[in-house]
């Protein structure tokens, strides 16, 4: 599990919304391995900003609609 605040995601949900897409199909579309998709979905691996934006573009959603950071809001 990565260190720092916990980040949850809706990848699995979005994948199923997109016509029961398999992890392999999603991996191929994003140019990563299936193992990486599994790790992303389970929250064991946090993507780089580049991959996060790529995922957001792929699902046509803003990044914050897919990834959410738990914990207190940063102070203003």
């Amino acid at each position: 599990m990565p260190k720092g605040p916990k980040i949850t995601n809706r990848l699995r949900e979005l994948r199923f919304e997109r016509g029961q897409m398999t992890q392999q199909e999603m991996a191929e579309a994003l140019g990563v391995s299936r193992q990486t998709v599994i790790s992303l979905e389970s929250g064991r691996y946090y993507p780089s900003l580049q991959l996060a934006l790529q995922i957001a573009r792929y699902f046509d959603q803003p990044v914050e609609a897919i990834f959410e950071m738990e914990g207190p809001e940063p102070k203003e």
Partner: protein
Amino acid sequence: MNVHEKQAWFVLAVFGVTIFLYGMLTAIIGFHPANSFVLFLMFLCFFVPLIGRSEKKQGKAITDERDREILKKACWAGFGVLWFVFLSCMMLLLAILGPDAIINVKGWAIMLLVGAAGGIVGLTQAITTIILYRRG
């Protein structure tokens, strides 16, 4: 299992077999310079890049950012452990022989030390790679 995991398991297997054979020979014939020939088995590690070569050529093997991160961590772990071992040995020598000691080292011993350093790095990298892939 991806290419990097296969390579790590291969390195681990080579080390495992080498240590096992060396231990067995030592148990049977005792400490003998001839036992050292078993260590040449470690040269099999030079074949590591050949593992998964065909998969890479066919474009089946993907190395993505997670793989690169794992390999980077494994590399850091390998050299970190080597540095720790090096410092520990230096401190131990200093403690045992004292600050005025002069050490004569033969050429073959230097070769052996370089080989051992390579072994420490390779083995730590392999173990770290396997652990990090198992963790997900």
